[in-house]
């Protein structure tokens, strides 16, 4: 447990130091992320056999105080967060245009800390505070982009606050009904009565709003596409996953089975529609980063679909699929946003059509985009494929579930369409757009790294599954 705490402490303390001590920012931030990464690896090693560790904060017994939990899944998410932060930080240190301002460093550290606190928490109100922390850090990061990002940042902030308040009202109702805030104690007591239903409804809506889950995703494309590239990468890969995690905890650990079974199809239906609506919007938008942002909306649809069906059928395999989607999407999206930023910066245009000829002028970046895209589409042997495979298996076992599989197929085709829409422009040799500035080779190769990791994920996927599935139940 101490390793996990170190993984949380390092970015928090690092963030403070970065505010105070201003020279040598990048180096310190890198060190912080690295320490956090190593600590998270150690934490994962401690619980790799599927055990769960508790920490009672302040030494008080659970109903009174806050508990932190360390499960293989939360350790994995810690590792994932720290790894992506490290990667983005290395990239940002190399490519200052991608961060917007010097305050990126402390803010990114605090964002990392907020996520770490979120993955570890097992207390409903504490989760609310971490959510707010996460939301404010994200808004502040978006605002780094300067004037053009202020409107999206404000919309993001207001909707995120509204989501938090809906969640908080739900927490209040649950506390009023059961008198405790600990998630697992609540899970033991919860019954399917009216206050519980209302609370779960409010919390779900709030979390869906914060996590940009369809149909409450409208703020996401503007916010994610107007932020600096490194920030967009962090937002899409990590931030939206926080509310999703809480939603998952809520419905699989707290909610009475009866309610979960009832609510499952609703969430799954929203997920299926997200796949289609997000994919369609990504196909239509003329802007590159906006395309990538809409693809996040669509990809979250897979996760929501997996969650809804896992609830409906009480099927732990689908929970594993959910988390694989999250991890695979995170890695691919980091690559994709950084590549999109690199393309935009080097070619000097925001629109998809400015990519004409990019396969010649920026071959590595274009390759990165495709590699990441292949995982988003879910072609083998990527992590995205593995996740989709796990999702499909339970769907295909019974003919009456094939309707859901059809949604997955349509989502796949849509994602293929929007990824190849970009790729096709890259191969256009008719009027290539000349680069405005010299491309940076190291940066290009660095953006490729997470995309390659997604493919590595497929090879270790089988070993990861036990960590993702059912262990923390």
């Amino acid at each position, binding site marked *: 447990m101490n390793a996990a705490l170190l993984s949380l402490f390092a970015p928090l303390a690092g963030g403070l130091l970065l505010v105070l001590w201003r020279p040598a920012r990048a180096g310190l931030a890198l060190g912080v992320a690295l320490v956090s990464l190593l600590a998270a690896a150690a934490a994962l090693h401690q619980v790799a056999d599927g055990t769960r560790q508790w920490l009672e904060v302040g030494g008080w017994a659970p109903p009174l105080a806050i508990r932190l939990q360390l499960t293989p899944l939360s350790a994995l998410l810690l590792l994932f967060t720290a790894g992506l932060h490290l990667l983005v930080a290395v990239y940002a240190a190399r490519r200052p245009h991608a961060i917007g301002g010097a305050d990126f460093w402390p803010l990114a550290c605090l964002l990392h800390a907020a996520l770490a606190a979120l993955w570890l928490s097992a207390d409903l109100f504490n989760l609310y505070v971490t959510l*707010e922390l996460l939301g404010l850090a994200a808004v502040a990061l978006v605002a780094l982009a300067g004037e053009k990002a*202020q409107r999206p940042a404000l919309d993001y902030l207001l909707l995120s606050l509204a989501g938090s*308040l809906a969640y908080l009202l739900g927490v209040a109702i649950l*506390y009023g009904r059961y008198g405790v805030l600990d998630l697992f104690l609540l899970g033991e007591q919860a019954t399917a009565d009216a206050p519980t239903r209302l609370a779960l409804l409010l919390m779900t809506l709030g979390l869906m709003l914060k996590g940009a889950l369809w149909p409450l995703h409208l703020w996401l494309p503007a916010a994610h596409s107007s932020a600096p590239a490194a920030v967009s990468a962090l937002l899409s890969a990590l931030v939206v996953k926080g509310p999703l995690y809480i939603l998952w905890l809520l419905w699989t650990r707290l909610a009475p089975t009866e309610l979960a079974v009832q609510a499952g199809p609703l969430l799954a239906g929203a997920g299926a529609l997200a796949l289609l609506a997000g994919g369609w919007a990504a196909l239509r938008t003329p802007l590159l980063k906006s395309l990538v942002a809409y693809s996040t909306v669509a990809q979250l649809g897979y996760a929501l679909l997996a969650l809804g069906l896992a609830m409906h059928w009480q099927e732990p395999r689908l929970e594993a699929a959910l988390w694989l989607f999250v991890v695979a999407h995170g890695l691919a999206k980091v690559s994709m946003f950084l590549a999109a930023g690199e393309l935009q910066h080097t070619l000097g245009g925001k629109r998809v059509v400015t990519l004409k000829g990019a396969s010649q002028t920026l071959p590595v970046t274009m390759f990165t985009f495709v590699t990441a895209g292949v995982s988003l589409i879910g072609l083998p042997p990527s992590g995205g494929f593995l996740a989709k495979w796990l999702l499909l298996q339970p769907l295909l076992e019974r003919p009456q579930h094939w309707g859901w599989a059809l949604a997955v197929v349509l989502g796949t085709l849509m994602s293929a369409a929007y990824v190849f829409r970009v790729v096709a422009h890259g191969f256009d040799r008719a009027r290539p757009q000349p680069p405005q500035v010299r491309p940076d080779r190291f940066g290009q190769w660095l953006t490729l790294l997470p995309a390659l990791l997604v493919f590595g994920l497929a090879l270790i996927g089988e070993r990861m599954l036990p960590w993702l599935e059912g262990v923390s139940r």
Partner: protein
Amino acid sequence: MSTPLFWLGVGCVLWLLGLHGLLTLRNAVRRIIAINLMGSGVFLVMVALAIRERPGDPVLVALVVTGLVVAVSATALALRLSGQLARARKGDA
């Protein structure tokens, strides 16, 4: 009607009133006020739940204090953002 129940209801009304404002209003400052009303509604619900017993439930009160600080922080940021936006718009005009 008991006192907790009464204030519980008032809290809910306040929350919904704020939500209504958020859904219908366009002006940024007004929307921020709406969010704050939603917050006050939630806090009222929490305090109403806290006074179900004598003396009041310190845990809920503490949660409200925390929530209040979170709310004021977020409000401050939102107001700065809206002010900046308004200034940019004035600059454009």
